[in-house]
């Protein structure tokens, strides 16, 4: 049997991440308690270094390697850059939290790095086998991370819930993969596409069934109604730093999972999955926006807001044009930036023995720390879609893509839900600026990098709203090639 070694270079980001993760693991083992900051810095170097390499790779032509199971194109690179950067911000926000709450910091950073590796693998997957492996590599550390805070029954309940729901989602996905394998005799996305173009006239019933199962798995992972029941419970039960993590980068990975299945592997079944997505998008927007109104717990409220936002993201995919896909990607990136900021503020305001959870805990934040309140204001305005914030352009993008393909009723319904949704975001703004604080002590952020990170994050939301063109074009190009 002749064997030519595959081209390893396209997988340089994954190899870098894995190599550095192993290095962090070894260094952590030989560190004593005093020098534990080193683990944090090594982790940040890994994330930012890999992100720099990813940026330098951007613009290179599409490569497929490892016998067609790995793809590196502009879409994958763009997603990887944002995954790496967002996890780096997550670590900056949660550093103090991890130290104060006695969470085993070495294991925390290691599991985060492993999760990042899984997301990278998933984003670059070009066969269902690597797709599934990437999904497991990125999910398994997350389950463990939630339970890492030990003695809290709430956290363990959230971890078990997330684990079981994740296992069910994996089961759905695998069953779908097996059905599609039965119809096409291949895991490879490239071979599946060529197989389908050959047998377009045969009845695609088995494929449709596989499609339903696979997209159910992906929708589960993204927390889209009717597979959303775990989202509020897990967000609420997890320690704040873990909520921050699971609410941001995994959404980008989930987006990659959904687009790999629908847009890349099964574009032939577009008429089938368009109806499917219309139904779940409507349900998501309705459930998310309406139930969020009655939430007193800010983590639950943001969880329902994430369900609604995922619904808006789907609108871009429903359009079924490269423009729509690009708009959905842009929406996803902006959502992750916003949710990074919102959960980041929540994590920063939590102290030892005090988990910020209630909307009322934000009372009078303006008098306690005006700059932090202002950053939160920018982020919440953007989530509510107030122009000229980034969230506004993200919503306009997906709605416009739908109007372009002559679907007008769906954007109209989406707008109504967006107006309902504005209420609960603005309620937090009102609480921050016009209510008397519960405690008068000013909030002081100890570390400089945390302050810098939240400032960059809040201002990014603002400036991406003023100058959105570059990022929108990058997202559009990702689907044009």
């Amino acid at each position, binding site marked *: *049997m002749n*064997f030519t070694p*595959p081209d390893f270079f396209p*997988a340089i980001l994954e190899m870098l991440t*894995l190599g550095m993760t192993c290095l962090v*693991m070894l260094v952590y083992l030989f560190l004593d308690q005093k020098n534990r900051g080193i683990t944090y810095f090594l982790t940040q170097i890994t994330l930012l270094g890999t992100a720099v390499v990813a940026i330098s790779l951007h613009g290179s032509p599409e490569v497929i390697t*490892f*016998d067609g*199971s*790995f793809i590196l194109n502009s879409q994958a690179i763009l997603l990887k850059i944002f995954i790496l950067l967002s996890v780096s911000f997550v670590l900056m926000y949660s550093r103090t939290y991890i130290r104060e709450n*006695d969470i*085993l910091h070495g*294991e*925390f950073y*290691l*599991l985060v790095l*492993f999760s990042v*590796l899984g997301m990278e*693998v998933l984003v670059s997957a070009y066969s269902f*086998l*690597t797709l599934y*492996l*990437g999904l*497991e*590599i990125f999910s*398994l*550390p997350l*389950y*463990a991370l939630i*339970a*890492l805070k*030990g*003695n809290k029954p709430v956290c363990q309940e959230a971890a078990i819930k997330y684990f079981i729901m994740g296992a069910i989602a994996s089961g759905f996905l695998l069953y779908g993969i097996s*059905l599609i394998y*039965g*119809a*096409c*005799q291949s895991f490879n996305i490239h071979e599946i596409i060529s*197989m389908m173009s050959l*047998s377009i006239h*045969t*009845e695609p*019933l*088995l494929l449709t*069934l596989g499609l339903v199962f696979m997209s159910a798995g992906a929708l589960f992972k993204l927390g889209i109604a009717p597979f959303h029941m775990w989202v509020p419970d897990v967000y609420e039960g997890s320690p704040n730093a873990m909520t921050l993590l699971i609410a941001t980068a995994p959404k980008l990975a989930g987006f990659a999972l959904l687009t790999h299945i629908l847009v890349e592997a099964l574009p032939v079944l577009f008429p089938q999955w368009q109806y499917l997505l219309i139904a779940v998008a409507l349900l998501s927007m309705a459930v998310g926006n309406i139930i969020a109104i009655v939430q007193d717990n800010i983590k639950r409220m943001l969880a329902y807001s994430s369900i609604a936002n995922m619904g808006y993201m789907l609108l871009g995919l429903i359009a079924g044009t490269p423009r729509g896909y690009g708009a959905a990607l842009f929406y996803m990136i902006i959502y992750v930036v916003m949710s990074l900021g919102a959960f980041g503020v929540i994590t920063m305001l939590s102290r*030892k*023995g005090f988990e910020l959870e209630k909307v009322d805990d934000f009372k009078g934040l303006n008098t306690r720390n005006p700059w932090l309140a202002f950053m939160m204001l920018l982020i919440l305005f953007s989530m509510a879609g107030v122009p000229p914030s980034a969230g506004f352009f993200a919503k306009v993008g997906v709605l416009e893509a739908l109007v372009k393909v002559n679907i007008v009723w769906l954007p109209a319904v989406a707008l109504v839900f967006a107006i309902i949704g504005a209420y609960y975001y603005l309620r937090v703004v009102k609480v921050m600026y016009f209510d008397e604080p519960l405690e008068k002590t000013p909030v002081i952020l100890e570390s400089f990098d945390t302050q810098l990170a939240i400032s960059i994050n809040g201002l990014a939301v603002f400036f991406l709203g003023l100058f959105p063109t570059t990022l929108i074009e990058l997202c559009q190009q990702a689907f044009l090639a």
Partner: protein
Amino acid sequence: MIEKLIFYVFAALLIGSATMVIVSRQSVRAAFFLIVAFCASAVLWMLLSAEFLALLLIFVYVGAVMTLFMFVVMMLNLDQESLQEKFVRYLPFAVLLVALMVGVLVYAMKPGHLGELGLAISPHPSADYSNTKALGLLLYTHYVYAFELAAVILLIAIVAAIGLTHREKSRNKRQRIDAQLAATKADRLQILQLEAEK
């Protein structure tokens, strides 16, 4: 002929024991039926001349995983009553869903709908053909990337398991200043009203 007979016997055994896994009342018994199911499917794989996988299933799953699983099941003190109460409550809903699923699947998996190559396997390889060697060649060349990723999953499992069970800190006898400062009179002091002795 004899192969067909073996197939039907063990396929029936597999389905029967798999059903018993979910309907049996005791979890230990369910685990035993799972072992039977594994053995039956190992025989089916043997019929497909996949000896390596068949033996692996017996060695790894029956020999190692299920033994461990039995330990865990025996150590857990499961409350059977409350489990069964919910089982009965959700039964009609579950039966309806399963019937719907089976109906759709049976309709979708009509032979014509499967791809043309679906049922074609090379039944009789030559005498010097080694299943293990063929698998190894494929695994370390064609699927090398996936193989490495599977290894990473094992590494994650080790790190996660250690992280979750290693709770040295909470057992340490060190001073917890925050807990001391947060303590109130009600936590430490209990005032009992004792009846006066007569």
